[in-house]
Every structure is written in C-alpha cells, then in structure tokens.
C-alpha cells in the first residue's frame, strides 16, 4: 500500500476523534439511556425524538446550523468567546462536539434497549438485598447489559469514523486537526488521485465490515443472555 504521510495523519486523527467522541458519548449517553428506559414521564417522547433527530437530519443541515451557531455571531460562538476559548469551527474540539451530537442516538438506543431488556425484576431483587442505586447499576445493570454497551461503543465509534457531511461544513480541511479519512478520500477523488482514494476506501470498507460483524456477534450474545435470564427468572 502506498499511503502518504497525509493519509496516515488522516487515519490517526480519525481514530483520535472517534475514541474521544465514544468516551464522551458513553459518559453522557448512559444516564440519558437509563432515564429513557426507566421513566414514565410525559417528556419521554419529546426527549426520545430529540435524541433520535440526527438519525434523519441530513448532515448538511446539522453542519450548516453548527457553523452558524458556533461562529462568532452564534449563541455557542459567543459563549465560547466569552469563556476565552475562541470559536469552535475548524478545530478538533469543534468536530468532537458536532460528532457527539451526530452520533448520540447510535449510543443511547442500544444502551436503552439493553437496560429495558433487563426488566424491573433483577433490580427489585437487588434492592431487597439492600443494594444502593449505585450498586444496582454497577453490579447488576452493567454486567447484564454489557453487550448493549459494547454495541453502543462500536456503533458510536464507527459512525463517527464514517462522518463526512458535517466535517465538510465545519472542518476547514486542516491537517491533524479536522482533515479526517472521509475528507481525505474526497480530496483524492476530486484531485483525480484515484489510486490513493482506492487504498483509503478499501480500508474503510474492511473497517465497516468488521465493526458490524462485531456488533452482530455481540447481539447474538445479548439474545442468548436474555433467554437464559428469562429461564432463570
């Protein structure tokens, strides 16, 4: 393979971005998923719709609004400027924030499904054994819903790697900062460098396949786990 230094930089940056975003998403996505799985609040539909919106919004819409909102005259831009952080478009952290928003449903929904699949019973039993809510989460929910969390992590990571439209809108194509693999491929195609475009594209095809393969393997585990739970319960 004849990958250039720029290509390697793009791969490194993409992995750094996806890891950062996945970590943040697991931290903020878990409480959201927990709340959505447990609540009877009338807000559930509203919050669910809000979380799921990036699933159907074109990335161009998200990118366009983020560019304006994070710009010097936007609400987010004025906030970040007043905090002395400057403006976020064309920066790594700008991409992180955009990706967190964009990949949120891919992390929240598998976790929510896994928690819902546990049902109330194991938690009630744990509660009668005087497990604190904290305990119940870490010693009951987390082990049982582990495949759901893994699916969420893989999906969140893979979806961030596959992001293109938003990065194009707010990235500015800066090496080691915002020039991710998908943008690098686009540049190769536009510059008629089809051989390089092929190398990177082939890597993406393989990556996507194995990411999804791992998810489907995890899902089979989850299903067999749920079945054995039901038998025991």
């Amino acid at each position, binding site marked *: 393979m004849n990958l250039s230094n720029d290509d390697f930089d793009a791969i490194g940056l993409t992995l750094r971005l996806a890891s950062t975003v996945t970590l943040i998403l697991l931290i903020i996505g878990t409480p959201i998923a927990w709340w959505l799985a447990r609540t009877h609040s009338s807000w559930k539909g509203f919050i669910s719709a809000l979380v799921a919106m990036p699933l159907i919004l074109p990335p161009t819409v998200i990118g366009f609004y983020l*560019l*304006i909102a*994070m*710009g*010097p*005259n936007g609400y987010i831009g004025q906030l970040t400027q007043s905090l002395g952080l*400057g*403006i976020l*478009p*064309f920066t790594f952290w700008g991409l992180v924030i955009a990706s967190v928003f964009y990949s949120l449903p891919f992390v929240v929904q598998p976790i929510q499904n896994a928690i819902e699949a546990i049902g109330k019973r194991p938690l009630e039993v744990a509660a009668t054994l005087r497990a604190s809510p904290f305990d119940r989460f870490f010693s009951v929910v987390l082990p049982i819903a582990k495949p759901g969390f893994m699916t969420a992590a893989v999906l969140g990571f893979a979806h961030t790697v596959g992001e293109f439209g938003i990065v*194009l*809108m707010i990235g*500015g*194509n*800066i090496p080691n900062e915002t020039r991710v693999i998908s*943008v690098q491929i*686009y*540049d190769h*195609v*536009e*510059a*008629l460098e*089809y051989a390089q475009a092929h190398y990177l594209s082939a890597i993406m095809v393989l990556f996507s396949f194995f990411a999804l393969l791992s998810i489907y393997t995890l899902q089979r585990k989850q299903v067999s786990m749920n079945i054995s739970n039901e038998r025991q319960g």
Partner: protein
Amino acid sequence: MTLPHLFIFLLGYLVLPLAHGQTVKVAVASNFIAPMKHIIREFKKENGHHISTAYGSSGKFYAQIKNGAPFDVFLSADQHKIQTLENEHLIVTGTRFTYAIGTLALWSNNTQFQPVNLAILTNNKFDKLALANPKIAPYGQAALDVINSLNLSTASAKKWVQGENIAQTYQFISSGNAEVGFVALSQVMQQRQNTPHSVFIIPKQLYRPILQDAALLSRGQNNQAALDFLAFIRSDKVTAIIESYGYHQPQNISLSESHQ
C-alpha cells in the same frame, strides 16, 4: 376520469416536455452558478430547447463523466479536467474552448477588516484566512499563487481554512468564521450588501490565470440542443453576460492562446 383516460393523461404528461425541442444536460462548475442561471434565461427565450443543469465541483463531474454520467456539455472550472477527458476521447475533438477567465477577489464580511486590501494579508492580523483547497479547486490554486507572490505562505499557513470548493469557502467568510478569504469575484458581485470596501480585486500579476474550459461531451455529439447551447455560449450576447459577472474573455486579455 376512467382508468385508461388517467393512464393516457399521465403518459402525455411524461412525454410533453420532450414534445418541443430537445434537452441538453449541462454540468457546471460551482463558481459559474450565477452567470449560468442568467444564460439559461436568455437561452430559453431564443429557442424551444430544454436545458437541465447540475452544479458541483469539476473533479466530481470528471469522475462521473468518466463513469458514464449522462451530460452533454461540461463547463469546467479549469482546463486540466477537460484536457484529461479529451485525452480519454470522452469529448468531441475540436470542441474544447475557454469560455471564461476567472477573477480572484479578497473578501471580508467583518467591518473591522474593511476596507479590504492586500495590507490585511501582509499585516497578518486575522485569525483565519479562507481559501478553496488548492489541491482540487482552481480558485484555491490561484489563492495560493497570491500567498506565495506575497511571501506569506509560512506566516499564514497555520491560519488557513480550506473549503472543498469556492462555494463553501464563501460560506466560511459569510458566516464570519473566517475574517477574510479568497473567493471568485462572480460570487461577491451578486450580493448587494457588498461594497467596494468589503471586496478587493486581486491584481492579475499575482496569480496564474484561471482559465475555465468547456467542451461538448461524446454523449452529446448528435444532440442539436447541445450544439445550439455551445454556439449560444460563444455568442457576443452571452460573452457580455459572462463579463458582467466579473469574468474575462480570452480575446479581451493579453494571453497566449489557451488552446492550440
């Protein structure tokens, strides 16, 4: 209305657009959107042909044409793509010509940076300088020429933000995310809020000419609408329209002949 009637009605509706004249499908580089819309209005006044246009980056159009995209005419943002298509026998020999020579402008949407001039670049007081990606966009290549002519590449490189095409570069500046940047003069000429203070036309000697070539694609060689459209683009009336959008014409500028 009975079902057969409805069917005939729908069929007629589908066939109707083809009844008068032929259709020409044109692929147009994004910097040329404004003049193209004007040209289409004039073209439709003169004959019964239909014209359908796709706007985008020349590199993408090249890839699509090479893979069988149904375009009859290609208005590229550069010469290279048309030449490559010619080498690959995907255009009709002898139909390649320069339809416009682009003009590069420095633009700011931020009053603190106005009046815009080259001193803004040499003072280096801005945070972000927007330009189209020089690797893929002719206007980006021209912008890089200017930066190099002024010996600013090392000083300013860290401040560059690159649009994938000139339309996106415009957006970076328009939204204020970049204080200043290089755009096509045709883009800022249409905006009423732009004044002589916000736009600076870059002197021609600072960058290599942006020669934009067009050609009849092989697929359109027997399409009368395509032939008429190409003849129309070369008419005095249309060259005047093109010039009114800030472009030049090869015959009106002292250049070596752009195609032999």
